[in-house]
Structure formats: C-alpha cells, structure tokens
C-alpha cells in the first residue's frame, strides 16, 4: 500500500491545519503563562479564529477541490459555513469572557476545547466521506461534553454533561449503524460515490432505508429536533450560560452542514423519502417546542424549547426542494438557501438572547429566570430595546431578520405545495409569539425586582449592540445575506 501513497494536497485544508496547530499552541502557552496571565490563551484563541477567517477567505476561490483521497472537500458551501462558524465562535467568546473569568472557568482547557470543537465543526463542514464526517462529529461532540462539564463543582452542569454524553453516544451509535448500512448497500464510504450508487438504483432498498433512517436519526439528534430533542432543555439549562451560548450557535452550522452533506450530497435520489421524515419531525418540533416553552419559568430552558422549534422551522426549508419527483434547480436552490438563511438568522438571534442573560448575570447571581428581565427598561432602556428586537425577531415580527427567515422558508414550503403544513406551523408560531412577547411585557410593564446597575464590560456592550443592530439591519435589508446563501448554494450544488 505504501508505494501508492501520494502526499495529499494540504492547501484546501489550510484553515483546519491552522486551527489545529493553534489549539496545541494555546495548550502549551497556557502552561507557560500560568494562572495569572489568563489573557494569553484568550488572545491566542482570538488570533487563531481571526487567522482562520483570513486563511479561509484567502483560499476560497469558488472551486470545488477534493483532497486526502477525496475524503475532504473544499467548496463554496464549506467556505461560507466555516466563515459563519468562526464569526459565531468569536461572538460567543466575546460574550463569555467576563462571565467565565468571574467564575474562574477561563482556564486554558476552556480555550483549547473551544478550538477543538471549532476544528471538529470545520471537519464536518468539509467532509466528503462518512469517515471524515464521523471524525469531525466526534471531535466536536467530545469537546462539547467537556465544555458543558467545565464547571466541575456544579452538580447541575456535570449532570447535564453526563446526559449529553450518554445520549450523544447513543446517537453516535445510531449514526454509525446507519453509515455501516449505507456502506453495505453502496460499497463505498465516499459521499459522492454513495450518491452515484443510489442514483443508478441497483442497491438493496431495505438496507438503504435502514441506513437512511439511522443517519437521519443521527442528524436529528445534533439538530435537537423531536423526538431526539430530549437532551436540549436539560443541557441548555444545566451548562454555564457561556457554554450554552456556544452550544446554541456555532454547532448549528455544523449540524446543517452534516444534513447537507449526508442527505443532499449523499442521498439526493432518496430526497422524497427523507423529506417526509424531516417534515414530520419538523412539525412535531415546532408544535412541541412552542407549546413547552410556554410553561417555562427559566429563560435558558425557554430558549432551549424555542431552539427546538426554530430547528424544526429550518428543516421545513430542507423538505421543500423536490416535489413529485421533479428536480427543478431553481426551486432546489431556493429551498436550501432558505434553510441556510434560517440557520444564520437563528444563530444571530440566539447569540443575542443568551448574551442578554449573561449581561444581567454577575458573580454569584445567574439571571436565568424570566423574572430577571422584569423592568429592564428602567434599568437600561437600550438593552431592553435590544432584547425587544431579539424577541420580536424570534417571534417573526416584520422588519427583523427572523421574520424574513420564517417568510422565505414558508414561501419555499408553499411553493412545494405544502400549504396546509404552512398554515399549521404559522399557527404554532402564533402560540410561540406568546412567550416571546411575555418577555417584552416583563421588561416594559413590570417593576424590576433587582435594581442594581448592570455590570458588563465595553466589549460585551458593544457586541450586544452590534448583534441587536444586525438583527434589525438584516431585517430591513434581508437580501444582503439571502443573496450570499443563494450564490453559495448555486455554485456548490
């Protein structure tokens, strides 16, 4: 075998290599810097992420290149999602800096785990083989388990991490089982090969469907949609808020990429099959997420259920591509870009929402109840306004990004002929509007329980302001991101 070995082309994976190297440097630098110079790993991590942006942007040429024996792909979709991931991670780090420092959690491991998780996401995004995908997934997941448990003294956090780990292992098992079935059915691990084999049609159907169902289950777990959602509320609530923010943002891009790579790139011939599965899970998620969120008094838990319903909404975009066996390129691009747009919008909104929770928290006090938002308008009119924008946007009220995200998904859904489904999910969004608006009501019409001034650094205030303004800005100019999503998909599908 060794004589066949060809040195792979490292160029397309430059960003991954850079992040991997930086993660190791952070680990070593932290040992040298010691506990008194926490800024060293923090700064290096920032450098790593900004550097990755530069590398990815510089190597993004719009060409689809495969390397590492065609196990790794670099296309425009990968570049776009990676850039979004870096930005989400940067946002999460800015929001978390003070929160983690106050709780003495900003150790070197924290930064290293964040970087490894990011690396895992990047590998998932660029996977063009089932093996690569699985490696990326495990790298990300293991780092995330560690991050959830980073507050070792907190019973809640360790319990959440334990649950996440066990259920994650189960989900990985399901996914691996599905992958092995696919391998059995098609005789290849390479995603392009699987697509080809399925297209040609001479595969044992039973085994293929086995493979499909189990892979879909694995994807659904990562996205956190019904009935694979059970971990979401417990983990979101149990993890330190900074970790919840991290968990709720960047990995969504990776999970979306996983769905795209496995389902769209790998099993497009079975699109009508998996579209039905996703549709059922989407409607169930939207229903359950919105209904359950109403009963919550803990805002992190409420946002977790809201995340379930949002991911359900995103899935609706993935289900609207192929109608009646007809593959119409324009409709396909439209449907997938609406889903991708939804992920971008959701990440922006949930980052701001969890950011607000951290803004109101201080050492020894977690602002994770709804009551913490009471009378926020009197304490800080501007941040009340930011939260108002976030909540309006999540509820899908016009002139905010969330409206347009929902709108484009629904448009794709109706074009695909699922009008009744559209009506049902709109009704459930209406139910959802209740708990979003309740937060607004608490902020503006209730007296504050806690009148202490908000303690937050300039970086966090600035980031929240930018984040809030982005939600408003992209609501007014929705095309700005939409065009990016559409072009990306047009050139990578």
């Amino acid at each position, binding site marked *: 075998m060794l004589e066949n070995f060809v040195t792979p082309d490292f160029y397309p994976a430059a960003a991954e290599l850079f992040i991997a190297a930086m993660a190791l440097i952070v680990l070593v630098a932290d040992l040298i810097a010691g506990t008194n110079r926490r800024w060293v790993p923090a700064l290096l991590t920032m450098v790593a992420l900004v550097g990755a942006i530069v590398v990815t942007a510089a190597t993004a040429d719009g060409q689809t290149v495969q390397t590492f024996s065609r196990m790794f792909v670099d296309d425009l979709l990968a570049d776009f999602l990676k850039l979004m991931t870096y930005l989400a991670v940067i946002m999460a780090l800015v929001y978390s800096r003070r929160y983690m420092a106050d709780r003495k959690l900003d150790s070197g491991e924290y930064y290293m785990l964040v970087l490894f998780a990011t690396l895992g996401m990047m590998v998932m995004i660029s996977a063009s083989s089932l093996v690569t995908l699985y490696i990326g997934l495990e790298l990300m997941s293991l780092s995330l388990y560690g991050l959830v448990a980073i507050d070792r003294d907190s019973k809640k956090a360790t319990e959440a991490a334990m649950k996440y780990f066990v259920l994650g292992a189960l*989900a990985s098992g399901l996914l691996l089982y599905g992958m092995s079935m696919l391998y059995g059915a098609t005789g290849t691990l390479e995603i392009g090969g699987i697509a080809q084999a399925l297209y040609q049609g001479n595969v044992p159907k039973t085994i293929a469907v086995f493979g499909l*169902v189990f892979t879909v289950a694995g994807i659904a777990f990562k996205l956190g949609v019904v009935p*694979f959602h*059970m971990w979401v509320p417990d983990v979101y609530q149990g993890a330190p808020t900074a970790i919840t923010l991290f968990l709720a943002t960047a990995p969504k891009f990776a999970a979306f990429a996983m769905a795209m790579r496995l389902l769209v790139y790998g099993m497009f011939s079975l699109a009508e099959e998996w579209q039905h599965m996703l549709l059922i899970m989407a409607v169930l998620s939207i229903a359950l997420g919105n209904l359950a969120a109403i009963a919550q008094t803990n805002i992190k838990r409420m946002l977790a259920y809201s995340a379930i319903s949002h991911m359900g909404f995103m899935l609706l975009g993935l289900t609207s591509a192929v109608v009646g066996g007809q593959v119409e390129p324009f409709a396909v691009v439209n449907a997938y870009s609406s889903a991708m747009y939804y992920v971008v919008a959701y990440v922006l909104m949930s980052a701001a929402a969890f950011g607000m929770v951290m803004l109101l928290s201080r050492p020894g006090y977690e602002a994770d109840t709804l009551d913490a938002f009471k009378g926020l308008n009197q304490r800080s009119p501007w941040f009340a306004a930011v939260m108002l924008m976030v909540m309006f946007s999540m509820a899908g009220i016009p002139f905010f990004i969330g409206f347009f995200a929902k*709108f484009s998904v629904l448009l794709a859904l109706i074009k695909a002929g699922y009008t009744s489904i559209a009506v049902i999910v709109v009704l459930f969004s209406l139910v959802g509007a209740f708990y979003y608006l309740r937060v607004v009501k608490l902020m503006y019409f209730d007296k504050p329980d806690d009148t202490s001034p908000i303690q937050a650094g300039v970086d966090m205030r600035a980031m929240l302001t930018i984040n809030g303004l982005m939600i408003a800005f992209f609501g007014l100019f929705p095309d700005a991101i939409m065009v990016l999503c559409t072009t990306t998909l047009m050139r990578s599908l």
Partner: protein
Amino acid sequence: MEMKTIYLLIPMAPLLGAVVAGLFGKAIGRAGAHVVTILGVAVAFALSVIVFQDVQAGNTFNGTVYTWLQSGGLTLEVGFLIDKLTVMMMLVVTFVSLMVHIYTIGYMAEDPGYQRFFSYISLFTFSMLMLVMSNNFVQLFFGWEAVGLVSYLLIGFWYTRPTAIFANLKAFLVNRVGDFGFLLGIGLIAAYAGSLDYAEVFAKREELAALTETVTGWPLITAICICLFIGAMGKSAQVPLHVWLPDSMEGPTPISALIHAATMVTAGIFMVTRMSPLFELSDTALSFVLIIGAITALFMGFLGIIQNDIKRVVAYSTLSQLGYMTVALGVSAYSVAVFHLMTHAFFKALLFLAAGSVIMGCHHNQDIRYMGGLRKYMPITWITSLLGSLALIGFPFLSGFFSKDSIIEAVHASNIPGAGFAYFAVLAGVFVTAFYSFRMYFLVFHGKERFDQVPHDEHHDAHHDDHHSGSPHESPWVVTLPLVLLAIPSVVIGFLTIQPMLFGDWFGAAVFIDSVKHPAMSEFAKTFHGPVAMALHGITTLPFFLAMSGVALSWFFYLKRPDIPAAIQKALQPLHTLLENKYYFDKFNDVVFAGGARLLGKGLWKGGDQMLIDGVMVNGSARLVGWISTLVRFIQTGHIYQYAFAMIIGVFALMTFWFNRF
C-alpha cells in the same frame, strides 16, 4: 451630488431631525431640538428647490430606491416618482413646514413638551414627503397612515385635556372609515392589475376599464375610484367624514396650520390628482366626487358663520375650501384643484398662524366676541390677516382669486352630471366665504375693544391660565416673520403661476385628462387671455359682486349695526339651532354609529366573546396549551433512560413507517 441621493435626502433630513429631537430631546435641550429640526426641514426645502430646477429642466424620475421584499408578483419597495406634480407638493410641504417650525419657537415657548412637539412636526414632514414622492400604492399607504398617526398624536398633544383626547380619538376613528375604503381600493387594484406600481397600473387602465368586479358585478374602475375617493374623503374631510376636522383644533395652532390646513388634509386632493388616469375612466365616480365636493363647499361654509372660536371659523373655512378643490377634481380640472391646493396652502397657513398670533396676543383667549380693535396693538398680524382674508375670498390679483375663479369657470364649462348643482354651490359659496371671513376679520381687528370682558371659564389653551390680564401685544419676530413670508406668496403666487400651471401644460404627463369626454378644462382654456385680463375681467363678474356684497353685509352687521345679527338669530331660531348642532352630524354619528357599534359590540361581547371565544377558544385553547405544556414537562422527567427510550421509539417509528411505504 447625484439626483437620486438628493431625492433620498429630502425625506431623510426631517426624519433625522425628528429622531434626534425625539430620542435625545432631553440631552440636546430646547434650543438643540429646534435647531436640529429646523435644519432638517431647511435642508429638505433647499434640496426641493434644486429638484424643482432639475425638473424644470425636463428631468423626471421614476424608480426604486430600496426593495424590502418580493412575494409572488407583488413587490414591497420604496420608490420615488418625481415629476412636476410631486415637486410642487414637495415645495409647498417643505416651505410651509419650515415656516411653521420657525413659528413654533415663539408659539410653544412656554410649553413643557417643546422637544416632543418639534419631533412630531418633523416626523410629519417626513411622512408627508414620503406620501407625495411615492411611486407605488404601498408607500402611498404608508405615508397616508403615517401622517394620520402624527395628526392623531398632535391633536392630542395636550394629553391631559379630555377634549383633546376626545378629538384625537374622533379623528382616528373617522379616518379609519376612510382608510377602510382606501385599502379596499388598493386591494382591488392589487387583485385585478396584479401590481401596485403606479406606472404599471396606469398602463393597464384600458384593461381595467373593461372589467367588472366579480362579486358585486359593479364596473371595476368605478368601484376602485369610489373606494379610493372614500379614503380621500376621510383624509380631506369631505361630508360626511368631515366631523373630525373642526375638533382637531384642540391641537396647538401651528399644527392646525401645517397639518389641518396646508398639507395633510390636501393629501386626498393630491391622491385623486395622481390617480387621474383612473378617475378619467369613470364618469360615475367623477360625479360622485363632484357632488360630495359641492355639498362640502357650501354647507360647511354656512357653519363658519356662527362660530365664535377664531380657530373654528378658519377650520370651517378650510372644510369649505377643500370642497372647492374636490369640485375641481369632479369636473376633471385636476390642475386647477392642485393650483387651488397650492394657493390655499399659503393663505390658509397664513390665516391659521395669524389666528395663533392673535390668540397669543390675547393671552390665550380664542373667542372672537371678546376681541375687537386689535389692529392698533398687532399691526403686522393685522395687515397679514387682511391679505390672507382677501386672498381667501378671491379678491382680484390675489392668489385665491385666480384659483377660485378658475374652479368656478371650470365647473361652468363642465357637462358632467351634477355640474349644475355644483356651479350653484360654488357661486353661493363665494358669498358665504366672504361673509364669514370678514365677520371674523371685523370682529377681531376692528370695532370696539372687548378683550377686557373675557369670562374666566371661557375656552382657552389650558397651559396659560395665569396670563389673563393686560392689553394685547404684538407677537415676537419668530412669529411675525413666518406671517410676512407666507403673506408674500399668498398675494403673488397665483398671478405668477396661473399661466404655466393651468394652461401651459406644466404638469405634462403627471395629470391625465380625457378632453373628449370631459372638455371642461379645454373649454375654460379658450376663454383665458392672460392673468391681467382675467383679473380685470374678474371685477365685472358675478363672483366678485357676490364676494363684495358678502364683505359689505358683514361690515354692516358686525360693525355698523351689531344688533341685527342677534335679531336674525332670534327670528330664525330653528335654522340657528340646526347650524349650532352642525346639521346634527355628530349626534347622528353618536347615536347610529357609535351607539350601534356599542350595541353590536355588547352583543358580540356577551354572546361571541364571553361565551364562544373566551369560554371555548381562548380559555379552552389556553387550557389545552397549558395542559400540553404540563404534559411535556411531565415527560421531560430528567431521567436519562427515558430520554434514550424516546430516541429509540423515534427510530422505531420511522423505521416501521418507511418499511410500510416500500
């Protein structure tokens, strides 16, 4: 600078002023608020002049500046249509607004809501500009609603006064009726023309004319035009949707001048003119417009005669003048309507601001029975008021003469059904206008000084109770300067612009007239031989005679023999009661509409709401939702084996389902 940037800057400058004064009013203080808003409006005015010159040079613009979203065939966007009609409106709006901004410095000097007021009037200027500059119905509707909103906020500006709150609620509700029609009209257009862009809709006008509305079987174009005009009736206060305008005088005087005389209330006139390609297709709609306008022009004038509140006299005069404009629309003399709109904007804003100056001079007494002889104390206000009044009654060579006489001539030349009645109404209206205008003028500026007899419980602006003593005084320069600046166009603008605007094809393609079917304008043009000839001829005609007899009669009644009006009032008690109650429109609305609505509401509330909606749907569904969410919490036990179990069940269900499909 590119023209497109200038177009965008014109509405944005006042908006910026409004935002700064509104959100940071406390920080920038009173002076900061008026500086920033006046600067914004001044920039808008200066740029409008540039645009005017550009349009004069023959450049028009119709295009999109910002697309919000596209849904199916409909596009929601912000776009500008800049032609001569637009640019004329822009000039009028920004100029009057600038004058009112300056005037407000003096008028609101002692008011605690100073910054809020400036923010509102700048916001109004922005909304009005968006309305007139629009090139599509969505933006038109946005501007339409936005000016309505600001009007609502400003009528209730002194929100601690119950009358102000009543008035602004009334204005809001009555306008809803009009807007309902307006929205229906827009909806019909969207449904049948498949577009909301003016140019695209106008291009399809012949197709639309051939259609009938599918549900009712009415001719489509008539239905559209009447629906749109109902919107105009609400905004431009035509009978029977006029009831809100007199009450709107509860707001501070500067906004009465800006919003309820010069600009917002003329939005309906502007809109119908803009829609002239559609209205030209329906004689039925034009007759409807004509008759409503004629009724408003005459009968609202009568009400002006018996009012004693200085602002209400001017308000009824505004109603009557809006009726004149509507009449001009009805006879397809759109350019004349807009011409009168322009001259009226100047002299009516002048009269309102002068009235405000009088109110300030008289220590916030508004009752003309307790004024008199003010010309000695307030010379500038006196002279400018006289000029404004003369312009209003149509004295030859003044601006109002040219526009009003043109309306009368156009009605005379028209052959549309209802033109005979309208001709009578506008002629009689001339006499009535002259009579009530000079009744007010004589009572305020001439005759015995009666300002020391003010009873203390009389109507007055609530915020200056303590200033009731002392003789009247002239207002400060910030108040008199706008008066002088408005008096100039009130005198000369008609003379200067009648030739190009009415007969020189100045509006070009902006106004469309089917001159075969509606020859009024072309007939009228044949008799026109220049402004001087028109004015000289005007002295020998019936309207001039009627106006002069109106002035003479009011002089005789109110200066020479003040006992006669009282005697007449006694003799014609039933008539006076009818006028006093404003033809019982308010009573009627109260009993029939408000009462009916309350009755219906009560029925719906008891039967529908409490039983069906609250009982079954709201509480029922809330209970259901609550029950489900509790159930979900119950399932979400926190036990990991149950979570895992749920996942396995999920996979199992998917598998079973899909195996059955194959």
